[in-house]
């Protein structure tokens, strides 16, 4: 019975969302009763979607194949964790997860939004309800996860082996939280446009949502990248695949939004631009959802292509994005522009940041959509690959990264560029020194890699320099510096930490791109191959049986340059139900570097084709992403409202009094 209850709960949630939308839009100005209604509706909507999600999870866990979805994508012999993750390892289930998170955010706004103006809250929840209704109805009518089977098959068809991995438990939920969290910013933007005013509370409200979404997007993308890296066995970590770009674009937009919302919260400036970015960021999330879910792209993410679904999503996309931007064009001029500032100021630096990021979004979008549009109009099939993106995206990131450390040093309202340069001179010197030492140690010559290293060190050291400068290390007694360090607000730490993370990630990307080594050999048991000072010996081949697969496991003994020996295991699996093969790469981590062993087929002589890579400092790029996300959480935990005090025209006459 629980399946049918889940089905009804989902339909009821959709109906509640409709009621929430209609009441929210019709009566938003009529006071607290309406606000109470939409808040209640938002919470109920979440509860019922949760019930339906749990019902679906239960049918997967109990292998109830009277649910068609459970039959198609799970198997009785899967381990419990994969039975659960199989729920969203398919189109229908992942749509349900998507709307669950959407409803969760709606409910969160309803619960935590008590101190928001009632009319604003009613409108925000009205927009949230409209999004919920559209996506839940899309799920129910084109991709119903509760479709039944009769007669009931005895055994399920099992999930795609590539997806039977812990990555499926982590990557999609994180990414969805990021995507869908942007819907809150979107709803706030629409509410502001309809009501024709942006309250001071507006900015204070949007920034945490943008920050939370950005943080989860960062984690989701980093996790997706690492998953593709270790599971697909190609040894790559980013392919400029349209699906990846679909998540990168909202991330870039969210990064821009985060920075402009900062200006708005602290300085009540950039209002219109922030609203534009909020709409843009969520529109890009929807675009990503469309690209992945419509089936116009073939990848592990698209599961099954169904033209109806694609058309419906496209229509929803057109209405939402088109409507939002039309509303923006019509109403934006009624909003009052905020505080003034000089071009050289913190605000100015953040605008520059926004310009570069927005242009980067455009570049990625052109590269992603151009081939699709060309094909849609009967043109030839082309693919836009890494060279295009490396050139355009790279060219935009270089100036952004050069300017990045300068921003936090500039004062609000009006800044002193020369003074900032002087204060960063030490960091610049250290950057050059570290780069020279590194290049000298690697034995390379001046190349693009050197430029990349310079950028990475510059951003990372610049971030540290900001903290050093704030505590006036060396300029005042150490004890006082220590007190200042303790007194630094969390937001200051999080800014520095996030920028440091960017620097670390750049260093990882640059070193692995420049100094990665690779070898393909065919070796038998007992033979070995040497790469970058590491010796890999194929020591043993064994057959083993997993829960729902059988595997050939090959053991490699890797001798590092320091003569330490470690074992790595690579597998070729065949999943018994689907008879689909899958490979598991063997990865050994040495410090920040990794040794990657991928197993190919057996050749005629019985030898195995083995691909080995040495990837110097590759983990830095994921550690960098983790540091960025950590900074996001740190900033979120700072509940205090920070005011960006303007710098007065006169220079401050004396040092600020110590505590």
């Amino acid at each position: 019975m629980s399946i049918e209850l889940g089905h009804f709960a989902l339909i009821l949630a959709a109906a509640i969302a409709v009621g929430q939308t209609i009441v929210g839009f019709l009566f938003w100005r009529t006071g607290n009763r309406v606000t109470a209604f939409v808040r209640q509706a938002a919470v109920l909507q979440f509860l019922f979607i949760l019930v339906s999600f749990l019902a679906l999870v239960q049918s997967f866990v109990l292998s109830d194949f009277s649910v068609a979805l459970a039959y198609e994508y799970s198997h009785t012999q899967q381990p419990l964790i994969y039975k659960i993750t199989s729920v969203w390892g398919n189109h229908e289930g992942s749509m349900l997860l998507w709307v669950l998170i959407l409803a969760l955010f709606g409910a969160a706004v309803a619960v935590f939004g008590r101190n928001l103006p009632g009319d604003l809250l009613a409108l925000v929840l009205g927009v949230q309800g409209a999004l919920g209704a559209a996506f839940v109805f899309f799920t129910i009518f084109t991709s119903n996860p509760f479709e039944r089977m009769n007669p009931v098959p005895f055994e399920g068809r099992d999930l795609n082996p590539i997806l039977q991995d812990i990555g499926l438990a982590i990557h999609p939920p994180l990414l969805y939280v990021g995507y869908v969290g942007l819907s809150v910013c979107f709803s706030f933007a629409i509410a502001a446009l309809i009501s024709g005013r942006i309250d001071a509370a507006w900015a204070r409200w949007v920034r945490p949502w943008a920050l939370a979404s950005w943080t989860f997007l960062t984690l989701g993308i980093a996790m997706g990248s690492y998953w593709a890296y270790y599971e697909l066995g190609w040894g790559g970590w980013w392919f400029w695949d349209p699906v990846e770009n679909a998540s990168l674009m909202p991330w870039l937009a969210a990064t821009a939004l985060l920075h402009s919302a900062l200006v708005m919260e602290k300085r009540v400036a950039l209002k219109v631009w922030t609203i534009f970015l909020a709409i843009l960021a969520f529109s890009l999330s929807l675009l990503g959802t469309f690209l992945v879910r419509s089936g116009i792209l073939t990848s592990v993410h698209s599961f099954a292509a169904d033209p109806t679904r694609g058309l419906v999503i496209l229509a929803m996309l057109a209405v939402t994005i088109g409507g939002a931007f039309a509303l923006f064009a019509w109403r934006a001029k009624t909003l009052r522009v905020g505080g003034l500032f000089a071009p050289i100021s913190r605000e100015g630096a953040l605008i520059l940041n926004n310009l570069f990021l927005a242009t980067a979004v455009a570049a990625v979008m052109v590269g992603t959509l151009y081939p699709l549009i060309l094909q849609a109009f009967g043109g030839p099939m082309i693919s836009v690959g890494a060279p295009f993106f490396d050139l355009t995206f790279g060219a935009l990131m270089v100036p952004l990264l050069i300017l990045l450390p300068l921003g936090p040093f500039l004062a609000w309202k009006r800044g002193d560029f020369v003074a900032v340069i002087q204060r960063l001179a030490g960091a610049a010197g250290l950057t050059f020194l570290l780069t020279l030492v590194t290049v000298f140690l690697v034995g390379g010559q001046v190349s693009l890699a050197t430029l990349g290293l310079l950028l990475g060190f510059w951003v990372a050291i610049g971030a540290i320099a900001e903290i050093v400068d704030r505590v006036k290390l060396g300029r005042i007694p150490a004890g006082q510096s220590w007190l200042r360090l303790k007194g630094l607000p969390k937001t200051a730490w999080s800014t520095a930490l996030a920028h440091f993370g960017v620097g670390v990630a750049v260093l990882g990307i640059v070193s692995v791109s420049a100094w990665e080594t690779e070898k393909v050999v065919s070796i038998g048991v007992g033979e070995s191959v040497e790469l970058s000072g590491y010796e890999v010996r194929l020591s043993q081949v064994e057959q083993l049986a997993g829960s729902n697969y059988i595997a050939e496991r090959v053991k490699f003994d890797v001798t590092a340059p320091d003569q330490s020996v470690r074992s790595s295991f690579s597998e070729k699996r065949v999943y018994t139900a689907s008879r689909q093969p899958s490979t598991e790469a063997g990865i050994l981590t040495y410090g920040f570097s990794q040794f990657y062993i991928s197993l190919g087929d057996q050749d005629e002589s019985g030898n195995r084709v083995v691909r080995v890579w040495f990837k110097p400092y590759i983990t830095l790029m994921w550690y960098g992403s983790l540091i960025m996300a950590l900074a996001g959480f740190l900033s979120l935990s700072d509940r205090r409202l920070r005011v960006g005090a303007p710098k007065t025209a006169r220079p401050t006459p004396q040092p600020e009094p110590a505590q």
Partner: protein
Amino acid sequence: MSVWLFVGGTAVLVALTLMFAGRAKKGLEGEALQSLSNEDHFKVQLAEIEADVKSGRLATEQAEAAKAELARELMHHRSKAIAPAAGSRWVGAGLVVASLGTVGLAIAIYAFLGTPDQPAAPMSARLAEEGSPLNLAQAIASVEKQLLLTPNDIEGWRVLAPAYMRASRFTDATNAYRRILELAPPNADALTDLAQALLFENQGVASPEAIEVLERAVEMDPTHPRSRFFLAGNATRQGDWDNAISQWNELISLANGDEPWLDVAKNGLSVAMARGELTSEETASQPSPSQNSGQAELIRSMVSGLAERLEQEGGSIAEWTRLVRSYLVLGENERARLAYDKALLAYPEPDTEGRAELDTLAGQAGLIGEAE
């Protein structure tokens, strides 16, 4: 029924909750709260500035400038008074309509899309169901897994090999039977099993290896009917009439009279004899390279005579079984499957006498597994 009870109950509860939420804070005026919460924001900002000054993070002059900005913002905010809303008379009615409409919509859609009568069927229930067949693929998978770890366990292979045959995985079956022959001294049965698997793997056509294996089986046990049956069938198929006649005769001489294969053997013998005479005449007059196909056609015409009669007039289950077997011997698996399906139509009850033999035959030939 209980599903509808739940649906109705939930609907009433939701409608009430929504209506109640709308009425809960009737006494408070929304507008007052709004401006309050906005001015609160300015107060919090002011307090933050004071706190920053106190902790030394902000110079007094900067703080003054920030406060001045804040005051300007507050004044602007106050100047933009919000017009009180109109039409609140309709709100109460609107909320009631919205609450009822919401649950009404949900029930209507569910009535259209739902399957309230279908019970759940979790794995535990399906396993407990009486007479539930142990799933073949699952059984194979578990034996396979065990054999990976104990590859020399001949009993395991003896279980696995026929299971592969039933699942129509003939290549796997061939390998499994080879493995059995490696693990124990060969006997006629084991050899014939391998030959049968080879035959099925090759769509009923005997490869030289299959013949050789069968001949080894006959050599080991000259009274082994199954190996002789396949050899005779192959000889008939090949149009090697003399050989076929002697093979069929030898086979029939081994019979007690109640063997299931006896009918086919007699049938094969008569075909071989009839064709043998024909061919010797033909050979005398005009040797033709297309002999084989001509002979096969004749056999087919005989079989199709039987098929036609059975389809038009019906027949006993034994006759249907013979038809299926004949098609299988001819290597026409598709027709065999059709014939089997028609036989099932004629005799739908699984308990009918003779069905067991028919089903076994069809199952071994993989007609059941693929038809599903």
